[in-house]
């Protein structure tokens, strides 16, 4: 019975148990990473050895070089960065404008429109996918970056608007009034007051935009045809078709796709956690 122990001992026991479970869980969740790195450093003969050798000797560092050059991964990375860059600018500019309107300006129908905006989060992309594809086809812009970037300039996505709106709601309104008295136009307030104060939120938007585009598969799959325009995700998929049995190369190529996201996380942990917490909680 708990009554037999002092509350402090009970707490200690609870913490010790939590610590043990956390250790086991963390190990379990990390194993796939270790397995991937380990495979990426093996020779093709070592890959299929049972039991597996976790630390291959000697390590085949050349696998990374081959994975990087067998298919033009530098081009894929460049394309992905170009798409991300173009889309992110659109996302930041248009979403912050829209969020400003929803958070800090009063106008008839605002709340109804905001709920309409939120409800489109529930709309499965497949409902609009085919007609949107037909629009780009009609404009002869299939196999360009336009379908993957231009839509970002029209609101920047429900998630982004929501996140920025939540952040804007926390900025004191007196600042707007003061700027208005100083003769700022509404757009001036957005540019010179709101945006500079929202840097942390904007950093979060840029982060998630990068991750979204780095990860995106269906978009590039539908819209990009020529290999010189492939993104990393599509390139990796093609790599699978060509080198599927050479698992050491496949894992090395996968790591090329994985590592930037992990590095980014270590650089910007706080923004990640804050950004998610801000959009997940009720506003």
């Amino acid at each position, binding site marked *: 019975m708990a009554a037999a122990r002092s509350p402090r001992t009970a707490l200690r026991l609870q913490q010790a148990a939590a610590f043990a479970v956390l250790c086991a869980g963390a190990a379990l969740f990390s194993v796939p990473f270790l397995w991937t790195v380990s495979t990426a450093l093996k020779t093709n003969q070592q890959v299929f050895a049972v039991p597996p050798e976790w630390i291959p000797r000697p390590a085949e560092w050349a696998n990374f070089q081959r994975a990087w050059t067998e298919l033009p991964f530098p081009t894929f990375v460049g394309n992905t960065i170009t798409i991300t860059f173009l889309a992110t600018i659109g996302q930041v500019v248009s979403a912050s404008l829209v969020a400003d309107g929803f958070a800090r300006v009063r106008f008839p129908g605002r709340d109804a429109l905001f709920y309409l905006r939120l409800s489109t989060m529930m709309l499965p992309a497949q409902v609009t996918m085919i007609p949107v594809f037909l629009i780009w086809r009609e404009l002869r812009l299939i196999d360009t970056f336009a379908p993957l970037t231009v839509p970002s300039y*029209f609101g920047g996505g429900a998630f982004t608007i929501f996140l920025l709106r939540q952040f804007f709601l926390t900025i004191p309104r007196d600042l707007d009034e003061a700027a208005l008295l100083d003769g700022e136009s509404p757009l001036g307030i957005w540019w010179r007051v709101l945006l500079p104060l929202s840097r942390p939120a904007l950093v979060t938007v840029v982060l998630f935009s990068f991750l979204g585009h780095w990860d995106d598969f269906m978009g590039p799959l539908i819209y990009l045809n020529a290999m010189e325009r492939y993104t990393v995700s599509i390139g990796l998929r093609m790599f699978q078709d060509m080198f599927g049995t050479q698992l050491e190369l496949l894992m090395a190529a996968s790591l090329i796709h994985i590592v930037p996201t992990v590095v980014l996380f270590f650089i910007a942990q706080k923004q990640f956690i804050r950004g998610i917490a801000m959009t997940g909680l009720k506003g």
Partner: protein
Amino acid sequence: MRKYGNWGYVFILPWLIGFLLFTAGPMLASLYLSFCKYDLHTLTWVGARNYEVLLRQDPLFWKSLTNTALYVLFSVPLGLTGSLAIALLLNQKVKGLAFFRTAFYLPSLVPAVASALVWQWIFHPDAGLLNYGLSMLGVKGPQWLQDPKTALPSLILMSLWGIGGSRMVIFLAGLQGISDELYEAASLDGAKGWAAFRHITLPMLSPTQFFNLVLGIIGSFQVFTSAYVMTNGGPNNATLMYVLYLYNNAFRYFKLGKASAMAWILFVILLIFTLVQFRSASKWVYYEGGEKD
């Protein structure tokens, strides 16, 4: 609150245009297309034929819907429970929290294609990590992705690698928002441990739970990349997911009318799910101060 005439509309204009151009317009167009036969060349009105064919004569439609429903049925509750469990653990005062949080969170950052390739290798029947692990426990592992019986469970299992991601962080933020006073008050009334969890933590977390559930179901219904990359729907259509079949109809077989009808059926299913959840929310979702939003 600033009030300056119609500036509000100017601010939201980008979204309004985008909404008409990329959401409302295409929605109507796809509804129209769903009543047509269209192969990128000729467009013919066929009435409800696409829906009839799908619902009455297309076993693959039902197969893909069943596969997806099973996937949702298991991956969402398991994922939510797992996310909550991790959040509860990370909400304890133990050493190394930052390390643990990172270890659980990182898998959710792995891009979908890379994750699919890594897990395909983990599931390898002869030299894969999973069957090696099982063999150490004296169990002969199954064929995983290569056996129609275990292929779908494999995808569900793989989806659980990401449970430490944003859903968990949202739970954690929710947990940290519950005031200690509530627990202290409850403790004076004799509610500790499980009772406190049942009567304080769960009700206070229910809005978060609700948010995660609604978005979890919508997201899981649209599972695509793992099935496309790892199995391409096989073996024997065991992992033919709804959106994969829709994609195949649209961009492989160029049956754009049929694919549009599938999109609308999916939309209606998700709409019903979401409405039922919102309806039932008043019974189990607790909003502090009694207000609902």
